[in-house]
């Protein structure tokens, strides 16, 4: 339900970072989303086109890397990956674990841009075209 506002803040953040790369066009944006982040990946993708329309991100791809839940099991003294989010027990020893180490991520990892080459930009500048 709140995916549009999540996607909108991704667009804002990328646009801010784009100020360093004038004239660049965004090709791809990569997000890292934990299994406990309470966002629906399909909805993020659905909102992407709407949120990027009319921005430097228009037409770009959204790539979502999902991250599983990792808990620290005190009994095994090890970080263990859970298969899902229906039971917070260590898959090795079946003891309950409450110490979350990974799985709530909701991050922008990176984005890929296409930039006009130096020479190209210089040429455009000369003939008065805005890069």
């Amino acid at each position, binding site marked *: *339900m*709140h995916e549009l*506002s*999540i996607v909108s*803040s*991704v667009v804002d*953040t*990328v646009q801010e*970072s784009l100020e360093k*790369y004038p004239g*660049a066009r965004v*090709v791809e944006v990569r*997000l890292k989303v934990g299994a*406990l*982040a*309470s*966002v629906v990946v399909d909805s993020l993708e659905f909102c992407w086109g709407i949120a990027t329309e009319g921005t430097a991100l228009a037409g770009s791809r959204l790539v979502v890397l999902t991250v599983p839940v990792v808990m620290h099991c005190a009994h095994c003294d090890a970080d263990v990956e859970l298969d899902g*989010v*229906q*039971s*917070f*027990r260590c898959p090795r020893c079946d003891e*309950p*674990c*409450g110490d*979350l180490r990974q799985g*709530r991520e*909701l*991050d*922008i*990892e*990176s*984005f*890929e*841009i*296409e*930039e*006009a*080459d130096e020479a*190209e930009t210089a040429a455009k500048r000369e003939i008065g075209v805005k890069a």
Partner: protein
Amino acid sequence: MTTRIVELRRGILKKNDELAAGLRERYTAGGVLVLNLVSSPGTGKTAFLERTLRELRERGSKVAALVGDLETDNDARRLAASGAPVRQINTHGICHLDAEMISKHLDGWELADLDYLFIENVGNLVCPSSYDLGEKIRVALLSVTEGEDKPLKYPTLFNSADAAVITKMDIAEPCGFDRELALKNINEIRPGIRIFETSAKTGTGMEGWLGYLEEERVSRTR
């Protein structure tokens, strides 16, 4: 044309997280225990909070509440009947409260004059779990009418909660509420969490809940 990959590694909700961190510092400095109450619509957050505010006031505690809803100030009016200062936050369609809304609505309140501040979130078990409000304690509420598997259906919220409250215990029996199963499911998602079985109508379980609040206030705000 050249392509380039720009590494950002930045939290999408960074702005909210930073604001929430600022709020958390203010709460700690003011010595006020802040709780964020989250549940589905109809669980009985408002009735539970009405009783909590009233009983805390009777014990001489200074309490206040912020209450979030899409529209109307009905809940704020109900809660204000307890005599506590209450403010309504209308989100106008937004499905959760965020740190900025809290910050705006705290204007003019002296946190140092309060013992407890309750934030009643918008009725929703999904979106509020992403937004830190700077609270010390996140409370997930579940009523006996909702089905014992609610924690399994909404693990992201129950897993991020510090305490769980079961409401409407007075009608548990006619509803065929399977208490053991509900407790087991909550523990499966959040092992070891404190669980309070309550009824705002009869007062069942309120003593334990209020005792917990007092303990937490003394230990966590120091």
